[in-house]
């Protein structure tokens, strides 16, 4: 196919900027809501932007080695790359990014890219807590991948395709075609997995934000940290876009995208503010129980009911 690379890259840059800004704003918005719930005022909307810029403009940095410096590079490459392979706005050539290069499997496997590189970068920091945090984070990841994989298999059977564009296309024509309503069991399993993916309570042991600062965010600073913070917003938004595309009918316009992703995110936040944190072995076991059962049920459901 004929690809106008320059235009593609330009369009992708545009998408990236929009999603990044949106991610940061949404982050701020959510923080303010949590603050209200907890009886505080909350941060100003500009705070995430200021954080990134502040870190970026710091005049000194400490480097533990080459891999240390490459860690944030991998991380943000992972975030940006994942977004690059997801069509953001359905039906829009401008905002379909590089989704012609690979399908859903590419996206799922590529999500590990950033995590792996980040883990290596934090490892060279020399701090054992970073390693502990990563060990916990990876272990948790393997377990929430199980219901997610089962849900993905279910929808692949349902829609008979791995192409994200086609999955979105099959969900057009009214909200009753969303996977949410045609295959709610798979969506339930996937949303439970999503709770693990976001890294909010009750699955935030690997960051342990309010207690012992642990893991990668503690070790990085200056420009490194600004890249990580940018990625946090970006990757978070990307995951939301992916879930929206797979389970909630995709978006034909930016406003629709923002509303849907905000609603999905609120689910995770609502759970997060209400529940305390699991211990890491508890969180690992959690996903192997009910969520996996729901995932298995979704495949059975699809095979017996939908594909007849």
């Amino acid at each position, binding site marked *: *196919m004929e690809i106008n690379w320059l235009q593609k890259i330009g369009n992708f840059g545009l998408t990236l900027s929009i999603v990044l800004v949106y991610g940061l704003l949404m982050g701020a918005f959510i923080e303010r809501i949590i603050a209200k719930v907890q009886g505080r005022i909350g941060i100003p909307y500009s705070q995430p932007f200021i954080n990134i810029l502040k870190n970026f403009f710091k*005049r*000194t*940095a*400490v*480097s*533990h*080695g080459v*891999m240390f410096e490459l860690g*944030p*590079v*991998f991380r943000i*490459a992972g975030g*940006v*790359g994942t977004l*690059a*392979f997801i069509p953001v706005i359905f039906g829009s050539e401008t905002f379909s990014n590089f989704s*012609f290069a*690979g399908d859903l*499997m*590419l996206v799922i*496997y*590529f999500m*590990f*890219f950033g995590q*792996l590189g980040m*883990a*290596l970068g934090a*490892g060279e*920091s*020399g*701090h*054992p807590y970073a*390693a502990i945090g*990563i*060990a916990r984070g*990876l*272990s948790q*990841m*393997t*377990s929430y*991948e*199980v219901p997610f*994989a*089962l849900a993905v*298999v279910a929808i*692949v*059977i349902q829609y008979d*395709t*791995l*192409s994200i564009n086609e999955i979105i296309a099959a969900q057009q024509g009214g909200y009753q075609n969303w996977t949410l309503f045609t295959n709610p069991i798979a969506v339930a399993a996937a949303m439970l997995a999503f709770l693990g993916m976001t890294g909010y309570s009750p699955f935030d042991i690997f960051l342990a934000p309010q207690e012992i600062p642990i893991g990668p965010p503690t070790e990085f600073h200056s*420009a*490194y940290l600004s890249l990580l913070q940018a990625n946090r917003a970006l990757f978070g938004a990307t995951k939301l876009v992916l879930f929206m595309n797979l389970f909630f009918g995709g978006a034909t316009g930016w406003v629709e995208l923002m509303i849907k992703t905000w609603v999905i995110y609120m689910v995770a936040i609502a759970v997060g503010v209400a529940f305390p944190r699991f211990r*890491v*072995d*508890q969180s690992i*076991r959690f996903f*192997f129980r009910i969520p996996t059962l729901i*995932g298995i049920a979704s*495949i059975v459901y699809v095979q017996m009911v939908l594909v007849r």
Partner: protein
Amino acid sequence: MVDLLHPLGIYILALGAGFLIPLLYGSSPKLATGLFVTALTGMAVIAGAGFFALAGGAASIEIETAGIAPPFSINLRFGLYESLFVFAVNLAGLLAALHYLPRLREQAATLLLFIIMIMGIDGMVMTRDLFNLFIFIEITSLATYSLIGFEGREDLLSAGFKYIIATSVASTFFLLGTAFIYYQTGTLNIDDIIANQSLISGPVGQVALLLLLTSLLIELKPYPANGWGLDVYETAPGAIASMISVGVSAGVFFALYKVLPLFGDFLTSIAVVGGITFLISNVIGLKQENVKRLLGYSSIGQVGLLVVALALLQKYGQQTHLALIVGGLFINHLLAKAGLFWLAGVVQRERIKDWSSIAGQPLLLLVFGVCLAALIGLPPFPGFWAKWGLVLELAVNNLYGWIALILVGSLLEAAYLFRWFGHALRAGDTAPVTLSVTELMPSAVAAALLAITGYITATHAGVVPLQLFLPLYAAAALFLLDGLPGRFKSLLMIAIVAAGGVWVARDLQGLNLIFGIILVGGGVLMAVATLYRSDARKGFYPLLAGLLLSLTTLLTAQTSLEFFFSWELMTLTSYLLVTLGRDAVKPALPYLLFSLGSAFLILTGFAAAFAATGSTELTALGSVGDAVPVVFSLLALGFIIKAGGFGFHIWLPNAYSEADDDFSAILSAVMSKASIFGLVIVAAHLGVRADIGLDAAYVLGWMGMLTATFGALMAVFQEDLKRLLAYSSMGQLGYIVAGVALMSHLGWVAALYMTVNHFLFKGVLFLAAAGVIYRTGTDLMYKMGGLIKNMPVTFVAVMIAIIAMSGVPPLSGFGGKWMLFNAMMDKGWYWLAAVGFFSSAVAFLYMFRILQTVFLGQRKLEHKDLQEAPAILLAPQVIMLAVIMLLSAYPKLLLDPLSVAIAPYVPGALVWDGWALETHLGYWNAPVIMMIVGGVWVVPLVFLLLVSLTIKVQPVKQFNIVYAAERPHRPEDTHYAYRFFAHYERAIGFLVKPRATAFWSAAGEWSHTLAGSLRIFYTGNGQTYAFFILVYFVALYFANGGTV
């Protein structure tokens, strides 16, 4: 003109010498001894000349007495089979006599008796008269009794006396039987009796035949009436024991063969007797610690096997096959057993544990190993060809129960024989033994003859020996040059393997060519890495050449026999190579046993295919028809055991981790592909279909994915680097097996693509591990740490290999996972696809662990000045990394040839849109992905570089307070590495409890207990033994329809 080489000369020489020796001994013992040796040599020469003449087509020689024709006189026959047995026994006798000469020459009587014993055996073989047979049996027995006892020790005398009791009872039975037969038929000539068989009828005839049969069987020492035989084996001197084992047994066995036509109704009983003896002797052998008694069990077992073969082939098979199979087994047994008894006689260590005294002596170990390998039926010795023929013949007649019995017995025999060998490989507490050339000579000659007869048998079996035996020639050549310096030998080995491999593989096509590139090219690349060690490494280079070349000949196999030959050769060489590791002898035995078990399953599978098609051509597998599920199940199970399939994997981690580091790389990257090759070739030719249900291929797919999952899970919890990589190999092979099980075009493309990739990844990882272990001196990951500063190239290599292996785009592992997932969804194997996701995720854990615990984190103080791995070890890694990067960007370069190679067997094609691969479900455009990922990676990198130019970046090292937990006085302690996934273990550790290990250990325990309880019949009491013999006869009588 007198024919000096006439067979009658044997008796003339023997009797003449027997007469003269006592006469001369008084005046000149030296002369008497000289006469003794000359007579024996003459007997051997005559027999040998006769054998070669008959083999060349001369007619049998009949010797009549007093010029009167039978049946009125006794006649001797010297036919082809007689000549073989006589030659073999005489030669063995000569060698035994030379071995034992220092003791034999002490008395005239012993010299005389020895020659008479040999003559008696020859007579047993040649005579055609029943009563004459009895006479010769008695002659042999008398000589044997006396020789047993002449050393005069108490245990010897008591054993000899039990021998007398037992054989006297047997002889009595024989005489009674002869009498009754004469009563009914009126003749004593065997040929006449057989011609007038119908006259032997009624209860009298029945009893007569059974008496005769019992007598012959008792002489062959069947279980449970063989306690007396074992006592003799245990106590008698090596030479005498060897003659009883191979000589007397040969004579009695041939006698049984001669009268076998009379026992037409009893063939099943005979087979059962032989089979029980074979199986149970080998079970009991498991518990035996005494060397000679162990050899006794093995002897009795082998004779049992010969009896089984004789009876079953007589009943069901063809005469020519009988000759080849039984003859092959006999020669094998004779040479190997005699060699071992003689070796035991000179090494003179009673317990098998004490055989550590021969450790480190290459020639001794070679002779020892050759004899043992021949006994098990490993190539290239005659026993291999004979066993192949036997199993095929039994399969044609649907006698799978017997096949199982024979193979299980062989496996047990391998267990205790190679346990003994293992003791000989490790230096222990006992003082080393050095043998002179004359002491070693008889056993060495036996070993050499085994090799020669193996070659001859091979030519009879219809294979092309030059090509097939190439690995052995290469190994032999390098063995002779084993005294050269290490690196020189390594270069020589690389040259030989490269040249030999290319020559053998020159005509390969399609699938075989693809595997050829991996096995030959990959093998040579790995072999180059062995240059990093400069020490002598005795035995390593010959064996490695043998292994790599046998992998090559595996590829060129046209028939299942050639395939199996190369397969067993690969098993043998890889076992020996594993034992060369530091502490590897103990884990090598389970490796050998599981490999042999898998080889026996493959043998049975091929036999079943032969039974269905009548041909051993591999392409003929296509016409197996209804038997496809059975054949496929047997073969697939065999291959999957060798690949470390789940449940049969317990040998894998130990063997991989204890073997030499560079050899572990070869085991994992190269040799494991042989199982995949076998699976692919067999499935390709069989034309297996894969549907859901209790379908063999679906089960295979599940086995593959379970192996992948549990291999990954078990790898997560390992502390030892090589064990982790071993479990990882096991897991990755599971994916490949599942891919093959799909039996679809895309599935096979995925499987072969993953095969190539696995070779690359694991090659890099194991070589990198070898480098790290070489520098740090430890295998344990928690003793390392922070090595990224010292070994950056190794780190990069490991990192790229790990990213690729985990399936993260853009590197090549992703393609394999993607294609596998697509293929599984196409087939409707949804659960397997989900399991695959899970095990992929788990694989991340251990991959990250390697990087974190070895290269990142805190460095130990003693590793401060560690150097990078040797360049010769890095070079293959760099090459393989370059290939990985190439394949990641342009997978089409590999996928198209794979698709073309597979298309003849599993029709289909890959659909391309330019560089993008399209399937029914999705699409994958590797070059574009590579560019995009490269782009999104380079941009932040450049950005960061620019930023670092504008700000002040301060590098910190290990003892800076910022680097590690603000604990600068002992940062090396705060390396999180031990029990890295303790939390994971707490959460799901119950999944990886060592259940398989417990199962197999229990199986071993139960076998030992069984062995102990089966010894209940060995009371050590001569009267009890006599009673058992009587009971044996009664049991045989009632078993064959006798009435009270």
